[in-house]
């Protein structure tokens, strides 16, 4: 396989609004044809970064290179980049067809070519029967597809999507996540999607960046970020994590109750420093074998079935919050537990991640 080519290079980009620093020295490379997600809590600067890529904000500092050319000061109508707005921003006085044709008319293409390209994209997005409707005659999901068709028909080098599924209900959102991924594959355009929903980015992205307070915390594949979070915030933000506070010891963390959690200590942490040991709920086993590195006894406080698996809340002396444990329904059937039971939990040292507090 050939080395993936960098399409967009964001180089030390910052944006200040008066005294607020919305984006703080972010550097990222986005590759040709990938589905890239920008993830972070509300207010972390995702929209601001996206608006700089689209050309609606100028960076206070830094460069934005598209195919190696700095576009930081190119106006939005001169960039081969399209943005799908969070509000969709469909033109309310134009039909679906007119909305989708608009961007091609701006390129002064021949009428016949506009027509055939619009027809093709309406077919791809399953909008043919709505072509003559006005936006107000469409449902949320249909509007979302029009916004997508309107941007895609321009065949941009880069498509930016600002929380494209935010306005849809949960069930439709799940279907659209897969639909967006299929479309991206089909049209072969690089997608950069903004979301505050970590599950959504895990499902859709080839690679993703986690932002907080305008800064980049980590950029990698969803799997790598899930398995090896860069810091405590990322570990907490992506998926569910159990934390055990304590002090760094030679080969793990000494919890407040004196128990030792075995795990690999990062080089940056010196013995005696405050730290947290963490483990994912699905890495914890009930009734572990005697040679399991980390074992603790606790009381089951609550349990809930989620179809394929069973989730338990187990109170232990290790942390103020109960442990969340996920076991498969099979395992639960073999050895049933109920609320109030004493259970032993166990997990391997390899599954422990240790972070500075």
């Amino acid at each position, binding site marked *: 396989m050939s080395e993936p080519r960098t399409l967009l290079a964001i180089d030390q980009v910052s944006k200040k609004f008066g005294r607020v620093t919305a984006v703080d020295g972010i550097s990222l490379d986005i590759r040709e044809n990938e589905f890239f997600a920008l993830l972070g809590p509300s207010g972390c600067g995702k929209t601001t970064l996206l608006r700089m890529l689209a050309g609606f904000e100028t960076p206070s500092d830094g460069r934005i290179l598209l195919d190696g050319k700095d576009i930081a000061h190119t106006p939005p109508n001169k960039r081969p980049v399209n943005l799908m707005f969070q509000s969709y921003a469909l033109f309310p006085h134009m039909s679906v067809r007119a909305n989708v044709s608009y961007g091609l008319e701006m390129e002064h293409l021949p009428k016949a070519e506009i027509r055939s390209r619009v027809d093709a994209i309406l077919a791809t997005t399953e909008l043919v029967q709505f072509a003559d409707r006005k936006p107000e005659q469409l449902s949320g999901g249909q509007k979302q597809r029009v916004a997508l068709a309107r*941007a895609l028909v*321009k065949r941009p080098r880069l498509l930016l999507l600002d929380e494209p599924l935010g306005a849809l209900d949960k069930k439709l959102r799940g279907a659209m996540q897969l639909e967006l991924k299929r479309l991206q594959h089909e049209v072969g355009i690089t997608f950069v999607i903004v979301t505050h929903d970590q599950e959504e980015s895990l499902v859709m992205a080839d690679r993703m960046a986690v932002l907080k307070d305008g800064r980049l915390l980590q950029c990698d594949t969803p799997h790598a970020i899930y398995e090896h979070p860069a810091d405590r915030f990322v570990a907490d933000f992506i998926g569910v994590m159990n934390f055990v506070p304590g002090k760094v010891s030679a080969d793990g963390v000494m919890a407040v109750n004196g128990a030792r959690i075995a795990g690999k200590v990062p080089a940056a942490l010196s013995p005696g420093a405050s730290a947290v040991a963490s483990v994912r709920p699905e890495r914890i086993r009930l009734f572990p074998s005697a040679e399991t590195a980390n074992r603790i006894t606790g009381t089951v406080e609550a349990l809930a079935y989620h179809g394929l698996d069973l989730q338990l809340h187990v109170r232990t002396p290790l942390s103020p919050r109960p442990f969340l444990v996920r076991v498969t329904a099979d395992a639960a059937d073999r050895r049933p537990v109920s609320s109030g039971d004493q259970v032993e939990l166990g997990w391997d040292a390899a599954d422990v991640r240790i972070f500075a507090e």
Partner: protein
Amino acid sequence: MAPALVWLTALMVVPCALVLALAFFRRGIYGGIDYTFTFENFGLVFDPLYAGIFLNSARIAGTATLIAVVVGYAAAYAIAAAPRRWQPIFLFFAVLPFWSNYLIRTYAWIVLLNREGLITQLLRWFGYTGEPPSMLYTEGAVIAGLVYNYLPFVILACYAPLSRLNPELAEASRDLGASAATTFRRVILPLTVPGIAAGAVFVFVLSIGNFVTPALLGGGRFQMIGNLVYDQFLTANDWPFGAALAMALIAIMLLVLMAQALAANRAAGRAAEAKGDADG
């Protein structure tokens, strides 16, 4: 509903009916009214002399409307583009002239425009030595007075749709490759036409029937129908003909208002139909 009907009847329908009735009688030889039925007052309205005044009034009102809409829309656009917290302050200044009396506002223009007025003095101050320009008692002065008086209506009428416009629509247009000018022509303007129409109808209807501004700034010549009606009632003492002229004027205003209401209704109907479709 019922009290409203009583008021409407007492204050609008009865006086209008009286004026309408008046238009079908003859003028008495020494003024007053000769109660014999006739259509000749309405015939006289179409006399080239008077029809010409109607046309002239429409032209002056139309020019004033055009200028007021262009200037008012630009002002409303600038206000809507200003930071949110400044907008109420700018709007307040835009309608500030309304707090003074119409006559005083019109007299202020005399102070500005007369031969030794402020504008002439300003020109002198810049070194102009020639004849003072004659600006007062011209059609231009009348148009300026009308525009000035009704501009706040246009600003308010245009500001409403402009301030409600989602700014992302303009951004979406730029994003899709349109220049700022194309974005204005194809997105912003079409979406704010209802405000322009409302403001324009307002200015036109109030201007075409106006008699104070043409009397004070136009120098008392029969420039506009308003002056003619005023003159028939108070100078020529021909009430029946004055009534016929007034009815013709009301008919023109009603036509303009009805045309606008019809257009607005049709737009609302389309919107409602669209809503129904989406629900169904």
